[in-house]
């Protein structure tokens, strides 16, 4: 009998091909139910003694095969956290006729549940469903959008979550966690001392103590202490039994193995098992971006292959014949390209593979250029095109995206700056046509592209925050909703926003200083100094 066994933390794939040329191929999948002992659960955590479990599965199969001759068997048992609805075990059995395969499979599952060292370690509680809006299919979309809210709503409705993957912790920085990770053990896992000192019974009235043991940080030396006995403890070392307190070494007089403890202070200096986290408690919720601290927590909890959002594949095109590389000297009518670098750097907080190219300002030639780069473009989750978004003669971004198969959801937003913003989708792939001016790039990235990135990755969308205007926003009423570049500062423990002076959407001086975008509703300016305003942080410094 041919036997294949896998014990794996990865999901069991949907389709498994049977060996060819056989009469019967019987498959079984054991799927995690939505409740355990009457309570709703989100997942089960499995643990195995893998070296022995593999051997035991093989031994069982060979043993049962003597009575029910079969030709091949494949067993996959998933380990670690298995969400409700996913398979914890897969068994496929091949035989000449179905009766042997059914018999072997049935008996194997019975014996597996008795003998194979695999354990359902614990059930993880169900978490409330995510508040992400449902995918909705839009009717024929209006190509022009009147407000930023409406644009955000359309982006969220049309962006699909990308499939998750498991990666080693070392590769997980910046990814979005796609499963809720719970503690599989209490933290700390044992009662321990928080001081270098001497453990004694908490209510021991003695003054003189006999030193009976010494426990270092990695020591595990259980013993029941008696009145008048003390154990030397290192900080972090496991206590020998319950009901103890630790007296700091500075507060004792030691004479060889005899210790005198004056009756002063009764601080326990003990960290109890589970004091930080009880087994089963949520450590990091699904949807959290994995930063240094959260990754350290996952490492502590032994979650070494977290389920996370994939690295995003981005294709970015610049357009415009006036654009030259930054290291060249512009001739009359030319300008240096800053958008390539800008996009690359704005994407820094999201782990991505970025492919960048420049397209000639001629639709036919641009299509030729793209044909030669078809592979990179077709595998991109996100396509960005800088420039060519307006309605000028040579502005071909919209037809280009349509030619690439994207359905255009909108092609203009009544927003300042950044009006000619184009958004398209095809399947799970997303495209934006960004107005060519750098300040518009900056604004459209934070107000639109970042919303799409959050949806693709599975985190909550960047939200507007409240702050106070540092100086008056001196601007006559404008009929267009505006995202006004501003400098965020802390003043007297409060967030203050200094509106920056900008002359046009090409103003690079202004956006080099900007780290926030003030929301100015249509016809609401001027706004007085000290007024409360909504703003979008345009930097990752504000944190998570």
């Amino acid at each position, binding site marked *: 009998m041919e036997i294949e066994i896998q014990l794996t933390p990865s999901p069991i794939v949907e389709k498994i091909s049977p060996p060819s040329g056989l009469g019967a191929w019987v498959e079984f999948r054991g799927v995690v139910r939505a409740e355990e002992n009457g309570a709703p659960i989100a997942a089960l955590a*499995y643990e195995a*003694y893998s070296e*022995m479990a593999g051997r035991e599965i093989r031994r069982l199969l060979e043993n049962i095969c003597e009575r029910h001759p079969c030709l091949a068997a494949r067993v996959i048992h998933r380990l670690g956290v298995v969400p409700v609805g996913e398979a914890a075990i897969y068994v496929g059995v091949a035989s000449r006729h179905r009766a042997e395969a059914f018999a072997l499979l049935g008996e194997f599952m019975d014996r597996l*549940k008795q003998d194979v*060292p*695999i354990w359902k370690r614990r059930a993880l509680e169900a978490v409330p469903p995510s508040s992400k809006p449902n995918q909705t299919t839009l009717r024929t979309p209006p190509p022009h959008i009147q407000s930023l809210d409406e644009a955000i709503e359309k982006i969220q409705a049309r962006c699909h979550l990308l499939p998750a993957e498991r990666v080693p912790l070392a590769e997980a920085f910046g990814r979005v966690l796609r499963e809720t990770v719970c503690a599989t053990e*209490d933290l700390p896992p044992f009662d321990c001392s928080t001081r270098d000192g001497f453990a004694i019974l908490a209510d021991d009235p003695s003054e003189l103590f006999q030193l009976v043991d010494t426990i270092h940080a990695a020591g595990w030396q259980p013993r029941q202490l008696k009145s008048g006995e003390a154990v030397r403890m290192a900080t972090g070392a496991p206590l020998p039994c319950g009901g103890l307190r630790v007296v700091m070494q500075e507060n004792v007089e030691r004479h060889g193995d005899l210790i005198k403890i004056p009756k002063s202070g009764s601080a326990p200096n003990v960290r109890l098992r589970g004091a930080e986290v009880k087994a089963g408690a949520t450590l990091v919720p699904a949807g959290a971006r994995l930063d240094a601290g959260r990754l350290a927590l996952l490492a502590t909890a032994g979650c070494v292959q977290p389920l996370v959002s994939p690295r995003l594949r981005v294709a970015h095109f610049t357009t415009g014949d006036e654009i030259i590389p930054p290291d060249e000297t512009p001739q009359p009518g030319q300008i240096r390209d800053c958008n390539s670098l800008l996009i690359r750097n704005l994407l820094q907080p999201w782990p991505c593979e970025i492919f960048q190219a420049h397209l000639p300002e001629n639709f036919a030639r641009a299509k030729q250029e793209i044909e030669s780069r078809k592979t990179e473009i077709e595998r991109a989750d996100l396509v960005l095109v800088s420039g060519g978004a307006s309605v000028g003669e040579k502005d071909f971004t919209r037809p280009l995206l349509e030619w690439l198969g994207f359905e255009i959801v909108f092609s203009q937003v009544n927003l300042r700056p950044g009006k000619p913003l184009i958004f398209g989708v095809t399947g799970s792939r997303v495209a934006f046509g960004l107005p060519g001016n750098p300040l518009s790039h900056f604004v459209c990235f934070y107000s639109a592209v970042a919303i799409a990135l959050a949806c693709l990755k599975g985190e909550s969308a960047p939200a507007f925050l409240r702050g106070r205007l540092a100086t008056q926003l001196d601007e006559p009423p404008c009929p267009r909703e505006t995202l006004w570049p501003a400098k965020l500062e802390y003043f007297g423990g409060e967030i203050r926003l200094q509106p920056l002076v900008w002359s046009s959407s090409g103003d690079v001086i202004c956006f080099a200083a900007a780290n926030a975008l003030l929301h100015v509703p249509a016809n609401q300016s001027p706004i007085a100094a000290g007024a409360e305003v909504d703003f979008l942080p345009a930097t990752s410094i504000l944190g998570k």
Partner: protein
Amino acid sequence: MRVLFFAQLQDVTGCAAMELASSCPIDREKLWANLLQKFPGLQAHRGNVRLARNWEYTDAATLFNDADEVALIPPVSGG
């Protein structure tokens, strides 16, 4: 010998594995005596824990050597 603890037994021992020094082969009774001395809490589980030696279940006659990997297997619940 290296002794491994699984599932709820880890809650009793506070660890997944330990080294147990033994100069000569010991039988099941002696092994349990050594383990209980270190982890008195295991007594409550002794009745339904099976012992494995080098990845196979043992029987009453099995002897445990210093180079062995020994595992305490509480009731399993895979599948």
